[in-house]
């Protein structure tokens, strides 16, 4: 997929690009609004990551422009301004999602994937983990044919780890993903540990789940069996 990163902070733009390239995206960079405007007019992008704090351009205008030009790119707004009005306005103008700086790169990826699934109507496939199966579509976690009773939070947590299989997710990244919307700044690493502990307990009642790994001093990972 083709992504344009519009971000005036070059160091950040490069980090985002480097991360997304490692996830097999094609990335293009624009450091100013004008540059972005030209690139959107000439190229076809699937995604535009748009920083609203551009020095030469009101970022929201770029969305309007792109829509007028008939671009079908999905916009994900990133901003450090943290003003709720920006979020509402951006979503009103047809942006697909919104991320406040600083955000986790993993979170950005999961948002892009979520938008892509919606956009291209991709059915999520079931994922096999040892003796367990995660049915993403129906939000069920099964041991053979028996459902493992997980709370909503527990399922979300496990799903996030599973969808990022092979990557270590820090407690903070997990916390932000699950509670970011309601408890922005009350991060408590204990929350994640307790939930993982409870998930493990429930899994072990059915079968051992060695694939749910603790990476000491870092966080948690669902082992890549590929």
């Amino acid at each position, binding site marked *: 997929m083709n992504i344009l990163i519009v971000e005036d*902070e070059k160091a950040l733009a490069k980090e985002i690009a*480097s991360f997304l390239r490692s996830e097999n995206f094609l990335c293009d960079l624009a450091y100013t609004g004008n540059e972005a405007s030209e690139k959107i007019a000439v190229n076809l992008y699937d995604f535009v990551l748009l920083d609203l*704090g551009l020095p030469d351009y009101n970022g929201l205008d770029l969305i309007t422009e792109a829509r007028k030009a008939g671009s079908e790119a999905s916009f994900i707004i990133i901003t450090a301004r943290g003003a709720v009005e920006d979020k509402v306005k951006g979503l009103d103008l047809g942006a697909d999602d919104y991320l406040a700086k*600083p955000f986790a790169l993993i979170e950005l990826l999961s948002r892009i994937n979520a938008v892509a699934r919606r956009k291209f109507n991709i059915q999520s496939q079931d994922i096999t983990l040892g003796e367990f199966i995660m049915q993403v579509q129906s939000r069920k976690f099964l041991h053979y044919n028996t459902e493992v009773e997980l709370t909503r939070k527990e399922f979300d947590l496990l799903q996030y780890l599973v969808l990022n299989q092979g990557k*270590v997710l820090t407690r903070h990244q997990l916390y932000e993903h699950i509670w970011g919307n309601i*408890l922005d*700044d009350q991060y408590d690493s204990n929350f994640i540990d307790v939930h993982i502990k409870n998930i493990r307990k429930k899994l072990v009642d059915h079968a051992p789940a060695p694939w749910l790994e603790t990476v000491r001093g*870092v966080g948690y990972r669902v082992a890549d069996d590929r």
Partner: protein
Amino acid sequence: MIRLKTKLALFNLLSKLAFTALFLLFLPFIIERINLRQVDNNLIQKREQVIGLIANVGIEPFITSDSTDTFGSYNILKEEFISLERTGTEEYLNHIEIARRLIEDEEIDYRVLNYSFLVDGKMYLLEIGKSLASIRDARRNITKVILAFLGIIIVLTLLTDLRYTSILLRPLEKITRKLKKISDPSGFDKVPVRTTTADFLSLDKALIDLMEHIGELFQKEKEITVNISHELMTPVSVLRSKLENLLLDPRIDDDISARIEDSLKTLHRLQTLVNSLLLIARIESHQYLREDNFSVHDVLNEIIIELKPVAEDKGVEITIVSGHEHNLIGANRSLVFSMFYNILNNSLKNTPSGGSVRIKGEYRDGFYTLDIADTGRGIPESRRANLFSRFKSREGNDEEGTGIGLAIAKTIADFHDIVITCASETGKGTIFSFRFPENS
């Protein structure tokens, strides 16, 4: 407190009563003067009539030379009398006096006109009298009329005064209403109140100017917070992305990963701190709306669902004790959520295994009050004083906490006019009490 309208009316009434009293003090004297003059004029008029009569018909019909040389007449009640007699004196009399006369063995005081005149070389004295009793009667009547009139005047002017002051003060009431209506300076109605009173106009204008000024300050603060947010979050963002990318690099071993995560943790603390300070600044510059209506218990139940796994893991019971429920009107739900969350999370953290955190809401002295009581280690006296100040409540070995949670709770409470108090006994527990405003 007495309203201005009432005060003005009271003053009007008192001043009128004072002036009336003064007037009444002099009234008898004035009436006496007026009345006597009236009586005297009346007597003189009668004298002219009698003299005219004598000039026409002569003195004989009244006094014949052979009789007693006296003519007298009075009415039945002896209120008036006329007498005519021959007199020996040469002197001409023409005066009015108060004198006592004996009529039919009754002594009566009269206002008497004495007038002497010459007819056919003989001197006659004419006396016309009016009894003082009848004069007094007249005076009493006049006094009654005047008093009644005064009374009516006072009542009438008082009513018109009341009406007028209430019309006069209407702009002031409008200005007060405008002030009461708003929760934010920008909400002040900039359309000047219609009035012809210069004072109200200038008061209203001063208020509009003041509100605009405060509004501008708020706007500036809003911009500053947005700018700080942008300036601080951008480098944090760069650093975070760099560290996260490093963490994902397969060449890096677990040991180095742990050290990178350590740095990320520090960065998160910075991020949380900046966000918390910005949150406080935003609340204090009224960048949040207060337009949600919701049940306090719904919010508490949501928080309990979030905290339950951690509480159970720790072996702490967290419950809502039956009591009164309360609906908040005109509040910000996510801020109130955050306020309770901070306090409950704090209580949970400070309560050892086997303890409990109990929430109870009830109406106390007319206010809805919610207590969050834990059986934790308590907060020592020395820390309680600045428990809610930023940073000061921080515990030395609390790695993640920035110690700002209680300050956030306090700011949110202030924003909603909720009073938070804390009572604590070391080793026994702590109670945080929230007293909600009456009209919430």
